Protein backbone atom coordinates (compact mmCIF):
# COMPACT_ATOMS: atom_id res chain seq x y z
CA UNK A 1 0.00 0.00 0.00
CA UNK A 2 2.29 2.69 -1.25
CA UNK A 3 0.78 5.95 -0.11
CA UNK A 4 2.39 9.31 0.10
CA UNK A 5 3.43 12.25 -1.97
CA UNK A 6 6.63 13.87 -3.03
CA UNK A 7 7.53 16.89 -0.95
CA UNK A 8 9.35 19.87 -2.38
CA UNK A 9 10.80 22.71 -0.41
CA UNK A 10 11.47 25.85 -2.46
CA UNK A 11 13.62 28.57 -0.95
CA UNK A 12 12.24 28.01 2.53
CA UNK A 13 13.90 30.09 5.20
CA UNK A 14 12.95 30.95 8.73
CA UNK A 15 13.76 34.08 10.68
CA UNK A 16 12.27 34.24 14.15
CA UNK A 17 10.68 37.44 15.45
CA UNK A 18 13.75 38.15 17.57
CA UNK A 19 15.84 38.20 14.40
CA UNK A 20 17.63 34.86 14.74
CA UNK A 21 17.99 33.04 11.47
CA UNK A 22 16.99 29.44 12.15
CA UNK A 23 17.10 28.38 8.54
CA UNK A 24 18.79 29.87 5.48
CA UNK A 25 16.96 29.59 2.14
CA UNK A 26 16.79 25.89 1.38
CA UNK A 27 15.68 23.83 -1.59
CA UNK A 28 15.05 20.13 -1.31
CA UNK A 29 12.85 17.45 -2.77
CA UNK A 30 11.76 14.28 -1.04
CA UNK A 31 10.69 11.58 -3.48
CA UNK A 32 7.45 9.67 -3.11
CA UNK A 33 7.97 6.78 -0.74
CA UNK A 34 11.42 7.90 0.30
CA UNK A 35 12.66 8.17 3.88
CA UNK A 36 14.68 11.32 4.23
CA UNK A 37 16.59 12.02 7.42
CA UNK A 38 17.57 15.46 8.61
CA UNK A 39 20.72 15.06 10.69
CA UNK A 40 22.62 17.66 12.61
CA UNK A 41 23.50 19.00 16.03
CA UNK A 42 20.86 20.85 18.01
CA UNK A 43 20.07 24.27 16.65
CA UNK A 44 21.04 23.37 13.10
CA UNK A 45 17.57 24.07 11.70
CA UNK A 46 16.47 20.49 11.14
CA UNK A 47 13.44 20.69 13.41
CA UNK A 48 12.49 24.04 11.88
CA UNK A 49 12.56 22.38 8.47
CA UNK A 50 10.28 19.62 9.69
CA UNK A 51 7.90 22.03 11.35
CA UNK A 52 7.66 24.01 8.13
CA UNK A 53 6.75 20.85 6.22
CA UNK A 54 4.20 20.07 8.94
CA UNK A 55 2.68 23.52 8.81
CA UNK A 56 3.56 24.32 12.41
CA UNK A 57 5.89 27.09 11.29
CA UNK A 58 5.42 29.44 8.39
CA UNK A 59 8.46 29.95 6.15
CA UNK A 60 9.66 33.50 5.51
CA UNK A 61 8.06 35.26 2.54
CA UNK A 62 8.95 33.59 -0.76
CA UNK A 63 9.42 30.10 0.61
CA UNK A 64 7.04 27.44 -0.62
CA UNK A 65 6.14 23.90 0.35
CA UNK A 66 4.74 21.63 -2.35
CA UNK A 67 3.05 18.26 -1.89
CA UNK A 68 3.02 16.46 -5.27
CA UNK A 69 3.52 19.84 -6.91
CA UNK A 70 0.54 21.46 -5.18
CA UNK A 71 1.36 24.49 -3.04
CA UNK A 72 0.42 23.86 0.60
CA UNK A 73 2.38 26.76 2.10
CA UNK A 74 -0.78 28.53 3.22
CA UNK A 75 -2.55 25.34 4.28
CA UNK A 76 -2.76 24.93 8.02
CA UNK A 77 -1.43 21.76 9.58
CA UNK A 78 -4.87 20.37 10.31
CA UNK A 79 -5.66 20.38 6.61
CA UNK A 80 -2.34 19.08 5.30
CA UNK A 81 -3.12 15.46 6.03
CA UNK A 82 0.25 14.66 7.45
CA UNK A 83 1.18 12.29 10.25
CA UNK A 84 3.51 13.52 12.93
CA UNK A 85 5.37 11.77 15.71
CA UNK A 86 6.64 14.18 18.37
CA UNK A 87 9.71 13.76 20.49
CA UNK A 88 7.53 13.93 23.62
CA UNK A 89 4.85 11.90 21.75
CA UNK A 90 2.12 14.44 22.60
CA UNK A 91 -0.32 11.67 23.48
CA UNK A 92 -3.61 12.90 24.90
CA UNK A 93 -3.68 11.97 28.58
CA UNK A 94 -7.46 12.11 28.71
CA UNK A 95 -7.88 9.39 26.07
CA UNK A 96 -7.09 5.68 26.04
CA UNK A 97 -4.59 4.14 23.64
CA UNK A 98 -7.36 3.23 21.20
CA UNK A 99 -8.94 6.67 21.47
CA UNK A 100 -5.60 8.30 20.79
CA UNK A 101 -5.05 6.17 17.70
CA UNK A 102 -8.60 6.74 16.48
CA UNK A 103 -8.64 10.48 17.15
CA UNK A 104 -7.57 11.56 13.67
CA UNK A 105 -10.17 9.24 12.17
CA UNK A 106 -12.85 10.65 14.43
CA UNK A 107 -11.94 14.15 13.27
CA UNK A 108 -12.25 12.91 9.69
CA UNK A 109 -15.70 11.57 10.53
CA UNK A 110 -14.77 8.00 9.68
CA UNK A 111 -17.76 5.82 10.75
CA UNK A 112 -17.21 4.10 14.13
CA UNK A 113 -17.15 0.59 12.70
CA UNK A 114 -14.46 1.38 10.19
CA UNK A 115 -12.62 3.41 12.76
CA UNK A 116 -12.52 0.47 15.15
CA UNK A 117 -11.23 -1.75 12.36
CA UNK A 118 -8.47 0.66 11.45
CA UNK A 119 -7.48 1.14 15.09
CA UNK A 120 -7.25 -2.65 15.44
CA UNK A 121 -5.01 -2.78 12.36
CA UNK A 122 -2.76 -0.13 13.80
CA UNK A 123 -2.57 -1.86 17.17
CA UNK A 124 -1.56 -5.05 15.37
CA UNK A 125 0.91 -3.30 13.11
CA UNK A 126 2.74 -1.77 16.05
CA UNK A 127 2.34 -4.85 18.24
CA UNK A 128 0.43 -3.25 21.09
CA UNK A 129 -2.98 -4.97 20.92
CA UNK A 130 -3.05 -5.73 24.67
CA UNK A 131 -2.67 -2.03 25.47
CA UNK A 132 -5.83 -1.03 23.63
CA UNK A 133 -7.78 0.30 26.62
CA UNK A 134 -4.87 1.48 28.75
CA UNK A 135 -4.51 5.04 29.83
CA UNK A 136 -1.45 6.87 28.58
CA UNK A 137 0.09 7.29 32.03
CA UNK A 138 0.11 3.50 32.40
CA UNK A 139 2.46 3.04 29.43
CA UNK A 140 6.23 2.75 29.29
CA UNK A 141 8.30 5.00 27.06
CA UNK A 142 8.59 2.42 24.30
CA UNK A 143 4.87 1.71 24.39
CA UNK A 144 4.09 5.40 24.16
CA UNK A 145 6.36 5.67 21.18
CA UNK A 146 4.41 2.93 19.42
CA UNK A 147 1.07 4.55 20.21
CA UNK A 148 2.35 7.84 18.82
CA UNK A 149 3.47 6.10 15.66
CA UNK A 150 0.20 4.19 15.30
CA UNK A 151 -1.78 7.38 15.83
CA UNK A 152 0.19 9.22 13.14
CA UNK A 153 -0.05 6.38 10.62
CA UNK A 154 -3.74 5.61 11.26
CA UNK A 155 -4.95 8.54 9.21
CA UNK A 156 -2.99 7.30 6.15
CA UNK A 157 -1.04 10.52 5.96
CA UNK A 158 0.44 11.89 2.75
CA UNK A 159 3.76 12.23 4.51
CA UNK A 160 4.93 10.98 7.88
CA UNK A 161 7.01 13.40 9.93
CA UNK A 162 9.08 12.13 12.84
CA UNK A 163 10.76 14.57 15.20
CA UNK A 164 13.46 12.74 17.19
CA UNK A 165 10.98 9.95 17.96
CA UNK A 166 13.50 7.73 19.73
CA UNK A 167 15.49 10.32 21.65
CA UNK A 168 13.47 10.02 24.85
CA UNK A 169 14.20 6.29 25.15
CA UNK A 170 17.12 4.42 26.69
CA UNK A 171 19.85 3.09 24.45
CA UNK A 172 18.88 -0.60 24.27
CA UNK A 173 15.24 0.15 23.53
CA UNK A 174 16.28 2.76 21.00
CA UNK A 175 18.23 0.16 19.01
CA UNK A 176 15.33 -2.28 18.99
CA UNK A 177 12.71 0.29 18.04
CA UNK A 178 14.98 1.65 15.33
CA UNK A 179 14.93 -1.72 13.60
CA UNK A 180 11.17 -2.02 14.00
CA UNK A 181 10.62 1.48 12.72
CA UNK A 182 12.78 0.79 9.70
CA UNK A 183 10.75 -2.31 8.82
CA UNK A 184 7.50 -0.44 9.33
CA UNK A 185 8.49 2.46 7.10
CA UNK A 186 9.64 0.03 4.38
CA UNK A 187 6.43 -1.99 4.56
CA UNK A 188 4.21 1.09 4.46
CA UNK A 189 6.15 2.58 1.58
CA UNK A 190 5.19 5.95 2.93
CA UNK A 191 7.04 9.21 2.33
CA UNK A 192 8.76 9.97 5.60
CA UNK A 193 10.85 12.82 6.93
CA UNK A 194 12.82 12.00 10.03
CA UNK A 195 14.73 14.40 12.23
CA UNK A 196 17.51 13.22 14.50
CA UNK A 197 20.85 14.20 15.95
CA UNK A 198 21.92 10.55 16.17
CA UNK A 199 24.04 9.51 13.18
CA UNK A 200 23.48 5.81 13.76
CA UNK A 201 19.73 6.35 13.52
CA UNK A 202 20.16 8.45 10.41
CA UNK A 203 22.32 5.87 8.66
CA UNK A 204 20.13 2.90 9.42
CA UNK A 205 16.80 4.56 8.61
CA UNK A 206 17.47 7.00 5.82
CA UNK A 207 17.28 6.43 2.11
CA UNK A 208 19.03 9.73 2.00
CA UNK A 209 20.53 11.87 4.71
CA UNK A 210 20.50 15.66 4.78
CA UNK A 211 23.30 16.89 7.02
CA UNK A 212 22.64 20.33 8.42
CA UNK A 213 24.72 22.87 10.27
CA UNK A 214 23.82 26.35 11.47
CA UNK A 215 20.66 26.64 9.41
CA UNK A 216 22.17 25.30 6.22
CA UNK A 217 22.36 22.03 4.35
CA UNK A 218 25.98 20.92 4.12
CA UNK A 219 25.52 17.63 2.31
CA UNK A 220 22.74 15.47 0.90
CA UNK A 221 23.38 11.88 0.01
CA UNK A 222 22.77 8.22 0.72
CA UNK A 223 24.18 6.94 4.00
CA UNK A 224 27.10 5.43 2.09
CA UNK A 225 27.83 8.67 0.27
CA UNK A 226 27.90 10.81 3.38
CA UNK A 227 29.96 8.22 5.21
CA UNK A 228 32.54 7.45 2.59
CA UNK A 229 32.54 10.73 0.71
CA UNK A 230 31.92 13.53 3.19
CA UNK A 231 32.31 16.88 1.50
CA UNK A 232 33.59 18.71 4.56
CA UNK A 233 35.41 18.28 7.80
CA UNK A 234 32.08 18.87 9.59
CA UNK A 235 30.31 15.97 7.87
CA UNK A 236 33.34 13.71 8.25
CA UNK A 237 33.50 14.29 11.98
CA UNK A 238 29.75 14.35 12.62
CA UNK A 239 29.09 11.02 10.95
CA UNK A 240 31.13 8.20 12.40
CA UNK A 241 34.64 8.49 13.74
CA UNK A 242 37.16 10.17 11.48
CA UNK A 243 40.80 11.19 11.45
CA UNK A 244 41.01 14.56 9.79
CA UNK A 245 44.70 15.33 9.22
CA UNK A 246 46.76 17.81 7.31
CA UNK A 247 49.69 17.02 5.08
CA UNK A 248 51.74 18.23 2.11
CA UNK A 249 50.69 16.75 -1.23
CA UNK A 250 52.94 16.39 -4.23
CA UNK A 251 53.39 13.94 -7.11
CA UNK A 252 50.47 11.73 -6.17
CA UNK A 253 51.24 11.25 -2.53
CA UNK A 254 50.83 13.13 0.71
CA UNK A 255 53.53 13.61 3.37
CA UNK A 256 53.04 13.59 7.11
CA UNK A 257 55.56 13.73 9.97
CA UNK A 258 55.46 9.94 10.16
CA UNK A 259 55.80 9.16 6.48
CA UNK A 260 53.61 9.30 3.39
CA UNK A 261 50.53 7.85 1.73
CA UNK A 262 49.40 7.42 -1.87
CA UNK A 263 46.61 9.80 -2.89
CA UNK A 264 43.59 8.72 -4.95
CA UNK A 265 42.99 10.18 -8.43
CA UNK A 266 42.87 13.06 -9.13
CA UNK A 267 45.71 13.98 -6.79
CA UNK A 268 45.99 17.38 -5.10
CA UNK A 269 49.02 19.64 -4.76
CA UNK A 270 50.30 21.66 -1.77
CA UNK A 271 48.81 21.78 1.74
CA UNK A 272 45.70 19.70 2.01
CA UNK A 273 43.40 18.06 4.51
CA UNK A 274 42.39 14.43 4.27
CA UNK A 275 39.90 12.22 6.06
CA UNK A 276 40.62 8.64 7.08
CA UNK A 277 38.13 6.36 8.87
CA UNK A 278 39.76 4.45 11.76
CA UNK A 279 38.69 1.10 10.27
CA UNK A 280 40.44 1.98 7.00
CA UNK A 281 43.83 1.99 8.70
CA UNK A 282 45.50 -1.37 8.86
CA UNK A 283 48.08 -1.83 11.63
CA UNK A 284 51.14 -3.81 10.56
CA UNK A 285 54.73 -4.39 11.60
CA UNK A 286 56.72 -1.18 11.00
CA UNK A 287 59.35 -2.73 8.76
CA UNK A 288 58.93 -1.74 5.12
CA UNK A 289 55.94 0.55 5.71
CA UNK A 290 55.83 4.11 4.28
CA UNK A 291 53.87 5.47 7.20
CA UNK A 292 54.67 4.71 10.83
CA UNK A 293 53.84 5.83 14.32
CA UNK A 294 53.94 4.86 18.00
CA UNK A 295 51.07 3.30 19.94
CA UNK A 296 49.95 5.80 22.55
CA UNK A 297 47.04 3.91 24.01
CA UNK A 298 44.82 0.89 23.37
CA UNK A 299 41.21 0.59 24.43
CA UNK A 300 39.68 -2.84 24.18
CA UNK A 301 36.06 -2.67 22.97
CA UNK A 302 35.32 -6.39 22.84
CA UNK A 303 34.63 -6.88 19.15
CA UNK A 304 37.64 -4.73 18.22
CA UNK A 305 40.16 -2.43 19.77
CA UNK A 306 40.70 1.25 19.29
CA UNK A 307 44.33 2.31 19.03
CA UNK A 308 45.61 5.86 19.46
CA UNK A 309 48.78 6.51 17.53
CA UNK A 310 51.23 9.35 17.95
CA UNK A 311 53.94 10.57 15.62
CA UNK A 312 52.22 9.51 12.42
CA UNK A 313 50.64 12.92 11.79
CA UNK A 314 50.71 16.32 13.48
CA UNK A 315 47.65 15.25 15.46
CA UNK A 316 46.97 11.94 17.19
CA UNK A 317 45.28 9.51 14.90
CA UNK A 318 42.89 6.70 15.79
CA UNK A 319 42.93 3.31 14.14
CA UNK A 320 41.03 0.11 14.72
CA UNK A 321 42.65 -3.26 15.16
CA UNK A 322 41.16 -6.78 15.32
CA UNK A 323 40.38 -7.79 18.91
CA UNK A 324 43.11 -10.42 19.16
CA UNK A 325 46.03 -8.33 17.86
CA UNK A 326 48.50 -7.82 20.72
CA UNK A 327 49.46 -4.17 20.98
CA UNK A 328 50.81 -2.12 23.81
CA UNK A 329 51.77 1.46 24.47
CA UNK A 330 55.13 2.32 22.99
CA UNK A 331 55.01 -0.24 20.17
CA UNK A 332 56.16 1.09 16.82
CA UNK A 333 53.66 0.22 14.14
CA UNK A 334 53.31 0.62 10.42
CA UNK A 335 50.07 2.01 8.99
CA UNK A 336 48.69 0.87 5.65
CA UNK A 337 45.80 2.62 3.90
CA UNK A 338 44.24 1.87 0.50
CA UNK A 339 44.31 5.06 -1.61
CA UNK A 340 40.54 4.97 -2.25
CA UNK A 341 39.83 4.94 1.53
CA UNK A 342 41.44 8.33 1.81
CA UNK A 343 39.33 11.39 1.07
CA UNK A 344 40.57 14.89 0.34
CA UNK A 345 38.46 17.49 2.11
CA UNK A 346 37.85 20.89 0.57
CA UNK A 347 37.89 22.92 3.79
Amino acid at each position, binding site marked *: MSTGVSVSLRAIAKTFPDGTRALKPTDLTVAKGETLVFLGPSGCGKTTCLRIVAGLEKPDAGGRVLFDGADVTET*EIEHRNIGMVFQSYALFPNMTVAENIGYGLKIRKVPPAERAKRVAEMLALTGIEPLRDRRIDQLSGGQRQRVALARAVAIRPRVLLLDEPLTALDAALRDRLRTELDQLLRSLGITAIYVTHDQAEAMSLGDRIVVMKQGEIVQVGTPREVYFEPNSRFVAEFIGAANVIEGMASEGSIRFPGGQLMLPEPPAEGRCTIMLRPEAIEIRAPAGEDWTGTVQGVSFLGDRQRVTIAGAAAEMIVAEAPNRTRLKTGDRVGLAVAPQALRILQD
Partner: protein
Amino acid sequence: MKSRQLFSLACMVPAVIVITAFFLIPAVQLLFIASGGEAGLSRYLAVLTTPRYRDALLSTVALSMVVTATTLLIGGIAGIFLARNRFPGHGLLVAILTFPLAFPGVVVGFMVIMLGGRLGLVGQISEALGADRIVFAYSMTGLFVGYLYFSIPRVLLTVMGVAETLDNRLIEAARSLGAGPFAIQRDIVLPALVPAFVAAGSICFATAMGAFGTAFTLATRINVLPMVIYQEFTEAANLAMAAALSVVLGLVAWAILALARLRGGDNVAAAG
Protein backbone atom coordinates in the same frame (compact mmCIF):
# COMPACT_ATOMS: atom_id res chain seq x y z
CA MET B 1 -1.33 29.46 11.78
CA LYS B 2 -3.60 32.38 11.13
CA SER B 3 -6.55 30.49 12.60
CA ARG B 4 -4.48 29.71 15.70
CA GLN B 5 -3.70 33.37 16.18
CA LEU B 6 -7.30 34.40 15.66
CA PHE B 7 -8.50 31.73 18.05
CA SER B 8 -6.19 32.72 20.87
CA LEU B 9 -7.19 36.35 20.35
CA ALA B 10 -10.83 35.32 20.47
CA CYS B 11 -10.07 33.54 23.75
CA MET B 12 -9.22 36.87 25.34
CA VAL B 13 -12.30 38.72 24.14
CA PRO B 14 -14.74 37.68 26.91
CA ALA B 15 -12.20 38.56 29.58
CA VAL B 16 -11.44 41.91 27.98
CA ILE B 17 -15.15 42.73 27.90
CA VAL B 18 -15.76 41.68 31.51
CA ILE B 19 -12.67 43.39 32.92
CA THR B 20 -13.22 46.56 30.92
CA ALA B 21 -16.89 46.85 31.80
CA PHE B 22 -16.70 46.04 35.48
CA PHE B 23 -13.25 47.19 36.46
CA LEU B 24 -11.34 49.31 33.97
CA ILE B 25 -14.05 51.84 33.11
CA PRO B 26 -15.35 52.13 36.69
CA ALA B 27 -11.81 52.52 38.04
CA VAL B 28 -10.90 55.19 35.49
CA GLN B 29 -14.11 57.05 36.23
CA LEU B 30 -13.37 56.84 39.94
CA LEU B 31 -10.01 58.44 39.25
CA PHE B 32 -11.74 61.27 37.42
CA ILE B 33 -14.24 61.77 40.22
CA ALA B 34 -11.46 61.82 42.78
CA SER B 35 -9.64 64.56 40.93
CA GLY B 36 -12.58 66.41 39.39
CA GLY B 37 -14.85 69.22 40.52
CA GLU B 38 -13.81 72.42 42.27
CA ALA B 39 -11.49 70.78 44.75
CA GLY B 40 -9.70 68.82 42.05
CA LEU B 41 -6.31 67.40 42.89
CA SER B 42 -6.26 69.34 46.18
CA ARG B 43 -8.33 66.47 47.58
CA TYR B 44 -5.19 64.39 47.63
CA LEU B 45 -3.52 67.17 49.57
CA ALA B 46 -6.46 67.11 51.96
CA VAL B 47 -5.69 63.49 52.72
CA LEU B 48 -2.48 64.75 54.30
CA THR B 49 -3.66 68.06 55.75
CA THR B 50 -7.07 67.23 57.23
CA PRO B 51 -6.40 65.72 60.65
CA ARG B 52 -9.20 63.13 60.38
CA TYR B 53 -7.86 61.70 57.11
CA ARG B 54 -4.21 62.09 58.00
CA ASP B 55 -4.64 60.38 61.36
CA ALA B 56 -6.59 57.57 59.74
CA LEU B 57 -3.88 57.08 57.13
CA LEU B 58 -1.10 57.15 59.72
CA SER B 59 -2.84 54.84 62.18
CA THR B 60 -3.71 52.42 59.36
CA VAL B 61 -0.10 52.35 58.20
CA ALA B 62 1.17 51.98 61.78
CA LEU B 63 -1.31 49.20 62.58
CA SER B 64 -0.45 47.39 59.34
CA MET B 65 3.26 47.62 60.09
CA VAL B 66 2.92 46.26 63.61
CA VAL B 67 0.61 43.49 62.39
CA THR B 68 3.06 42.61 59.62
CA ALA B 69 6.05 42.44 61.95
CA THR B 70 4.19 40.35 64.53
CA THR B 71 2.73 38.02 61.93
CA LEU B 72 6.11 37.45 60.30
CA LEU B 73 7.55 36.50 63.67
CA ILE B 74 4.72 34.11 64.60
CA GLY B 75 4.17 32.72 61.10
CA GLY B 76 7.93 32.44 60.54
CA ILE B 77 8.57 30.36 63.66
CA ALA B 78 5.52 28.14 63.22
CA GLY B 79 6.02 27.88 59.45
CA ILE B 80 9.67 26.83 59.62
CA PHE B 81 8.91 24.42 62.45
CA LEU B 82 6.05 22.76 60.57
CA ALA B 83 7.97 22.61 57.31
CA ARG B 84 11.03 21.00 58.84
CA ASN B 85 9.47 18.57 61.30
CA ARG B 86 7.00 15.72 60.92
CA PHE B 87 5.12 14.34 63.91
CA PRO B 88 1.70 12.88 64.70
CA GLY B 89 -0.90 15.64 64.48
CA HIS B 90 1.17 17.62 61.99
CA GLY B 91 -1.57 17.55 59.36
CA LEU B 92 -4.19 18.66 61.87
CA LEU B 93 -2.05 21.59 62.99
CA VAL B 94 -1.49 22.69 59.40
CA ALA B 95 -5.21 22.39 58.70
CA ILE B 96 -6.13 24.47 61.75
CA LEU B 97 -3.54 27.07 60.90
CA THR B 98 -4.68 27.45 57.29
CA PHE B 99 -8.46 27.09 57.43
CA PRO B 100 -9.05 30.73 58.54
CA LEU B 101 -7.79 31.73 55.07
CA ALA B 102 -11.34 31.49 53.81
CA PHE B 103 -12.96 33.42 56.65
CA PRO B 104 -14.34 36.77 55.57
CA GLY B 105 -13.31 39.80 57.60
CA VAL B 106 -16.64 39.96 59.37
CA VAL B 107 -16.23 36.43 60.69
CA VAL B 108 -12.72 37.26 61.85
CA GLY B 109 -14.19 40.22 63.68
CA PHE B 110 -16.64 37.88 65.36
CA MET B 111 -13.80 35.58 66.38
CA VAL B 112 -12.22 38.58 68.14
CA ILE B 113 -15.54 39.19 69.90
CA MET B 114 -15.53 35.57 71.05
CA LEU B 115 -12.07 36.20 72.52
CA GLY B 116 -12.23 39.75 73.79
CA GLY B 117 -15.87 40.80 73.65
CA ARG B 118 -18.22 41.38 76.56
CA LEU B 119 -18.86 37.65 76.85
CA GLY B 120 -15.39 36.77 75.60
CA LEU B 121 -13.01 34.11 76.80
CA VAL B 122 -10.35 36.52 78.03
CA GLY B 123 -12.91 38.41 80.08
CA GLN B 124 -14.22 35.20 81.64
CA ILE B 125 -10.72 34.06 82.53
CA SER B 126 -9.70 37.42 83.98
CA GLU B 127 -12.87 37.53 86.05
CA ALA B 128 -12.36 33.98 87.25
CA LEU B 129 -8.87 35.02 88.36
CA GLY B 130 -10.43 37.77 90.43
CA ALA B 131 -9.46 40.68 88.21
CA ASP B 132 -11.73 43.01 86.26
CA ARG B 133 -13.48 41.64 83.15
CA ILE B 134 -11.07 42.49 80.33
CA VAL B 135 -12.81 43.63 77.11
CA PHE B 136 -10.54 44.60 74.22
CA ALA B 137 -12.47 43.61 71.11
CA TYR B 138 -13.87 47.03 70.27
CA SER B 139 -10.60 48.92 70.29
CA MET B 140 -7.39 49.17 68.31
CA THR B 141 -6.18 46.12 70.25
CA GLY B 142 -9.16 44.13 69.00
CA LEU B 143 -8.38 45.21 65.48
CA PHE B 144 -4.76 44.17 65.93
CA VAL B 145 -5.82 40.71 67.16
CA GLY B 146 -8.25 40.37 64.26
CA TYR B 147 -5.65 41.31 61.69
CA LEU B 148 -3.24 38.81 63.24
CA TYR B 149 -5.98 36.20 62.97
CA PHE B 150 -6.36 36.50 59.21
CA SER B 151 -2.69 37.28 58.47
CA ILE B 152 -1.07 34.31 60.21
CA PRO B 153 -2.43 31.67 57.79
CA ARG B 154 -1.23 33.59 54.72
CA VAL B 155 2.27 34.14 56.05
CA LEU B 156 2.48 30.60 57.38
CA LEU B 157 1.58 29.08 54.02
CA THR B 158 4.10 31.20 52.14
CA VAL B 159 6.89 30.44 54.59
CA MET B 160 6.08 26.72 54.64
CA GLY B 161 5.97 26.58 50.86
CA VAL B 162 9.49 27.94 50.57
CA ALA B 163 10.90 26.18 53.64
CA GLU B 164 9.77 22.81 52.28
CA THR B 165 11.68 23.33 49.06
CA LEU B 166 14.82 24.22 50.98
CA ASP B 167 17.53 21.83 49.89
CA ASN B 168 18.40 19.51 52.75
CA ARG B 169 21.84 18.97 51.26
CA LEU B 170 22.67 22.61 52.03
CA ILE B 171 21.99 21.93 55.68
CA GLU B 172 23.94 18.68 55.56
CA ALA B 173 26.81 20.51 53.91
CA ALA B 174 26.74 23.16 56.65
CA ARG B 175 26.75 20.45 59.32
CA SER B 176 29.66 18.72 57.65
CA LEU B 177 31.51 22.02 57.95
CA GLY B 178 30.77 22.11 61.66
CA ALA B 179 27.78 24.47 61.89
CA GLY B 180 25.53 24.03 64.92
CA PRO B 181 21.73 24.29 64.87
CA PHE B 182 21.74 28.00 65.63
CA ALA B 183 24.34 28.77 62.98
CA ILE B 184 22.36 26.72 60.46
CA GLN B 185 19.20 28.74 61.12
CA ARG B 186 21.12 32.00 60.90
CA ASP B 187 23.37 31.22 57.93
CA ILE B 188 21.32 28.82 55.80
CA VAL B 189 17.62 28.69 56.63
CA LEU B 190 16.81 32.35 57.22
CA PRO B 191 18.72 33.70 54.20
CA ALA B 192 16.92 31.19 52.00
CA LEU B 193 13.60 32.37 53.40
CA VAL B 194 14.19 36.10 52.93
CA PRO B 195 12.27 36.25 49.62
CA ALA B 196 9.36 34.40 51.23
CA PHE B 197 9.36 36.82 54.14
CA VAL B 198 9.41 39.80 51.80
CA ALA B 199 6.55 38.40 49.75
CA ALA B 200 4.49 37.32 52.74
CA GLY B 201 5.17 40.57 54.54
CA SER B 202 4.02 42.73 51.66
CA ILE B 203 0.87 40.69 51.14
CA CYS B 204 0.21 40.90 54.85
CA PHE B 205 0.75 44.66 54.87
CA ALA B 206 -1.40 45.35 51.81
CA THR B 207 -4.21 43.15 53.13
CA ALA B 208 -4.14 44.89 56.51
CA MET B 209 -4.26 48.30 54.81
CA GLY B 210 -7.41 47.43 52.92
CA ALA B 211 -9.17 45.23 55.46
CA PHE B 212 -12.69 46.41 56.04
CA GLY B 213 -14.88 43.61 57.32
CA THR B 214 -13.06 43.12 60.62
CA ALA B 215 -13.13 46.81 61.53
CA PHE B 216 -16.74 46.95 60.40
CA THR B 217 -17.74 44.16 62.78
CA LEU B 218 -15.76 45.39 65.76
CA ALA B 219 -16.79 49.05 65.72
CA THR B 220 -17.53 51.76 63.27
CA ARG B 221 -15.66 54.17 65.53
CA ILE B 222 -12.17 52.79 64.96
CA ASN B 223 -10.50 55.31 62.76
CA VAL B 224 -8.78 53.23 60.07
CA LEU B 225 -8.73 54.28 56.44
CA PRO B 226 -11.25 51.78 55.01
CA MET B 227 -13.74 52.77 57.71
CA VAL B 228 -13.20 56.46 56.95
CA ILE B 229 -13.79 55.82 53.25
CA TYR B 230 -16.96 53.95 54.12
CA GLN B 231 -18.18 56.78 56.34
CA GLU B 232 -17.35 59.43 53.74
CA PHE B 233 -19.40 57.52 51.22
CA THR B 234 -22.41 56.56 53.34
CA GLU B 235 -22.70 59.18 56.06
CA ALA B 236 -21.11 62.26 54.52
CA ALA B 237 -22.20 61.31 50.97
CA ASN B 238 -18.88 62.74 49.84
CA LEU B 239 -18.21 60.46 46.91
CA ALA B 240 -15.30 62.51 45.60
CA MET B 241 -13.44 62.41 48.92
CA ALA B 242 -14.20 58.71 49.34
CA ALA B 243 -12.85 58.19 45.83
CA ALA B 244 -9.68 60.16 46.55
CA LEU B 245 -9.07 58.20 49.74
CA SER B 246 -9.71 54.95 47.85
CA VAL B 247 -7.17 55.95 45.24
CA VAL B 248 -4.57 56.65 47.93
CA LEU B 249 -5.34 53.38 49.70
CA GLY B 250 -5.30 51.47 46.41
CA LEU B 251 -2.00 53.02 45.36
CA VAL B 252 -0.29 52.19 48.65
CA ALA B 253 -1.55 48.60 48.60
CA TRP B 254 -0.73 48.14 44.93
CA ALA B 255 2.78 49.58 45.34
CA ILE B 256 3.54 47.25 48.24
CA LEU B 257 2.29 44.23 46.30
CA ALA B 258 4.15 45.25 43.16
CA LEU B 259 7.27 45.29 45.32
CA ALA B 260 6.40 41.83 46.59
CA ARG B 261 6.00 40.48 43.10
CA LEU B 262 9.33 41.89 42.08
CA ARG B 263 10.75 39.74 44.84
CA GLY B 264 8.98 36.69 43.49
CA GLY B 265 5.94 36.30 45.75
CA ASP B 266 3.21 35.23 43.38
CA ASN B 267 0.35 34.17 45.60
CA VAL B 268 -0.98 37.63 46.08
CA ALA B 269 -4.39 37.47 47.69
CA ALA B 270 -6.00 40.39 49.36
CA ALA B 271 -9.22 39.82 51.22
CA GLY B 272 -10.58 40.15 54.72
